[in-house]
C-alpha cells in the first residue's frame, strides 16, 4: 500500500478546510452586505469604491422604510395568518388523524386517498380556481382569504395518523372503560405522546406560511391584509424606490432580521422540524 505520508495528508485536509471556509464566507456575503448597506447613508451614492456602510452610518433608512411601508401592520398580518392557519390545522389534523388511526369504517381507504391527493397536487397549481372561489365567497383581500385554503392538511393528517397508531390500544380501551368519551380519550391519551410530532408540524407550517408569497400576492390588495413577503415586494417594485438600495435593504432587514434572530436562538428545534417535515 502506497499511502501519502502523514504530513501530506494533514496538509491536504487543511486545504479542504480553507476551501470550505472560503465557500462559507461567500455564502454569508449576501446577508452581511445587506446588513451593511441598510445603514449606508442615503445621501452618499453607492459605488464600487463605497460599497459597505459608508462614512456616516445611519438608521435613517429604517425609519424611512417604516414611513413608506406599514411594516408593523405587515408583521401583525403575517403573525395572524401563520398562527390562524396553525390553530385550525392543529384541530383538523388531530381529529382526522385520530379517525384514520383508530376507527374502522366504510369508505375509509377512499377517504384517506382523497385527503392524500392534497400532497400530490401543489396548491400553487390550483390558483386559477381557488382565486375564483375566494372572489365568489366575497372574502377577497381579507386575512381569511390568505388562510382558508390551508385549513385542511394532508401532510398533518398523515403525520398524526402515523403518530397516533403508535399509542397502545390498551390505553385507549382502559380510558373508555373508565368512562372517558372520545374527546377526553384523544386529549388525555393521544395528544400528550404526540407533542414532538405536533411541535415539528407547527414549526414547519409556520415557516412555510411565513415565507409564502404567490397565494397572498393574488388574494390581497391592501396593507390591511398583506403579509410581510408581499409588503416587501411592493416596496421593491415601487419604481422610484427600486434603485434606492439602502432603503430596500433596510426593508429586507426588517423582514428577515427577527427571523434570523429567532433561528439563532432556536437553531436545534428549527432544524429538527425541517427534518421531520420535508415538504411543508
Amino acid at each position, binding site marked *: 500500500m502506497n499511502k501519502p505520508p502523514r504530513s501530506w495528508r494533514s496538509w491536504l485536509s487543511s486545504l479542504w478546510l480553507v476551501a470550505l471556509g472560503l465557500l462559507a464566507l461567500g455564502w454569508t456575503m449576501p446577508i452581511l452586505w445587506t446588513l451593511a448597506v441598510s445603514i449606508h447613508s442615503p445621501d452618499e451614492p453607492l459605488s464600487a469604491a463605497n460599497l459597505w456602510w459608508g462614512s456616516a452610518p445611519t438608521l435613517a433608512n429604517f425609519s424611512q422604510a417604516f414611513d413608506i411601508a406599514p411594516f408593523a401592520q405587515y408583521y401583525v398580518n403575517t403573525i395572524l395568518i401563520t398562527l390562524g392557519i396553525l390553530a385550525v390545522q392543529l384541530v383538523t389534523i388531530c381529529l382526522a388523524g385520530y*379517525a384514520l388511526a383508530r376507527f374502522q369504517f366504510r369508505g375509509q381507504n377512499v377517504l384517506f386517498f382523497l385527503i392524500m391527493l392534497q400532497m400530490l397536487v401543489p396548491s400553487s397549481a390550483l390558483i386559477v380556481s381557488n382565486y375564483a372561489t375566494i372572489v365568489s365567497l366575497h372574502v377577497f383581500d381579507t386575512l381569511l382569504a390568505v388562510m382558508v385554503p390551508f385549513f385542511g392538511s394532508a401532510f398533518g393528517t398523515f403525520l398524526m395518523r402515523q403518530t397516533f397508531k403508535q399509542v397502545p390500544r390498551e390505553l385507549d380501551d382502559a380510558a373508555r372503560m373508565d368512562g372517558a368519551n372520545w374527546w377526553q380519550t384523544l386529549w388525555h391519551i393521544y395528544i400528550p405522546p404526540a407533542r414532538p410530532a405536533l411541535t415539528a408540524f407547527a414549526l414547519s407550517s409556520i415557516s412555510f406560511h411565513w415565507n409564502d408569497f*404567490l397565494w397572498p400576492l393574488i388574494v390581497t390588495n391592501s396593507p390591511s391584509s398583506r403579509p410581510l413577503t408581499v409588503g416587501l415586494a411592493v416596496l421593491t417594485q415601487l419604481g422610484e424606490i427600486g434603485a434606492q438600495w439602502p432603503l430596500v435593504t433596510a426593508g429586507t432587514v426588517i423582514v428577515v432580521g427577527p427571523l434570523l434572530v429567532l433561528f439563532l436562538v432556536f437553531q436545534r428545534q428549527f432544524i429538527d422540524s425541517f427534518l421531520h417535515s420535508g415538504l411543508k
Partner: protein
Amino acid sequence: MPTDSLTPPGRARLSSVALPYLLLLPTLFFITVFTLWPLARVVYGSLFLQNQAVQTPRFAGLANYQALAIDPGFRDVLTNTLVYVVVTVPLSAGLALILALLLNREFRARGLARLAFFYPAMLPMVSAATIFLFMYTPGYGLLNVFLSFFGITNQNWLGTPSQALPALMLLGLWKQTGFYMIFFLAGLQALPHDIFESARLDGASALQTIRYLTLPLLAGTTLFVTTIAVVNAFETVDQVYIMTGGGPVNATNMLLFNLYETLFNYLDVGKASAISVILIAILLIFTALNFFYTERNATYE
C-alpha cells in the same frame, strides 16, 4: 342485564358509527373545497375558451392545449423550467452531499460553518430574491465587484438573456443547498459506526469509503432530497416575479410564473387552466415514476 339509562344502546351505536366521519369532516370539507373541486375545475375549465375576447366560456375541446403546443413562447417556458430543474437539482443536491460529508467531521467552528450554509433556507424567497437583485446590480453589485478582481468586466446579469436564467439558478443553489445538506447530515449521523471502523481497519481510503459505503447507505436520503428538490424547482416563481418578470425576452419565464401572468396579465382563464393541468400532470408523472422506482428497489433490499 342492567341497562344504561343515559345512552340507550341504539343511539350509542349510531353515534359511534357516525363518529369517524364527523372527525374527518373538517379536513374533508377544506380539502374538497380547496383541492379536489379546484382540481376538477381546472381540468374541466381547460377545455373551454374563456378570455377577454370570449367572455362567456365556450367549449373548445383541446384548443387551449393546441394553442400552447404551437406557441413558441410556451415552448420557451417549458424549456426554461426543464433546464432549471435538470441543472439545479443535481448541483444543489451534489453540493449539499459534499458539504454534509465535510461538515460531519469534527473541527473547530463546525457549527458556525453549518450555520453559514443553512441560514438562506430560513429566509423567505422574496427577501432572498431582493438580496440577489442587489448582488447582481450592474456597476456596484457585489458579484461584479468580486469578479472584477479576476479581470471580468461589469456584466448586466439579469438583463442579458443568456445569463439571466443561470443567475436565477445561482440564487436557487444558494438558497436551497443548506436545506438539503441538513437531510444528508441527519442521514450520515444515522449510519452505523462499526462498518466504517472496520473499513478503516481494512485500509480503505476516504474516497473508497465514500464510494462503496457512504453513498449506497445514503441512497434513501438522496432519493428523498432529489424528490423535494425537483418539486421545489418546478414551483419556482417568487424570484422570477421579483427579479426578472420572466424576461429578458422570455429567458427566465417558467411554468408557474407563466400561469400567473396568463391569468392576471392576459386574463386568459382557459389557457391558464391548461397550463395548470400541464404542471400538475408533470408533477404527478414524476411522483408516479418515483414511487415505482422506490417500490422496485424496495423488493430486493
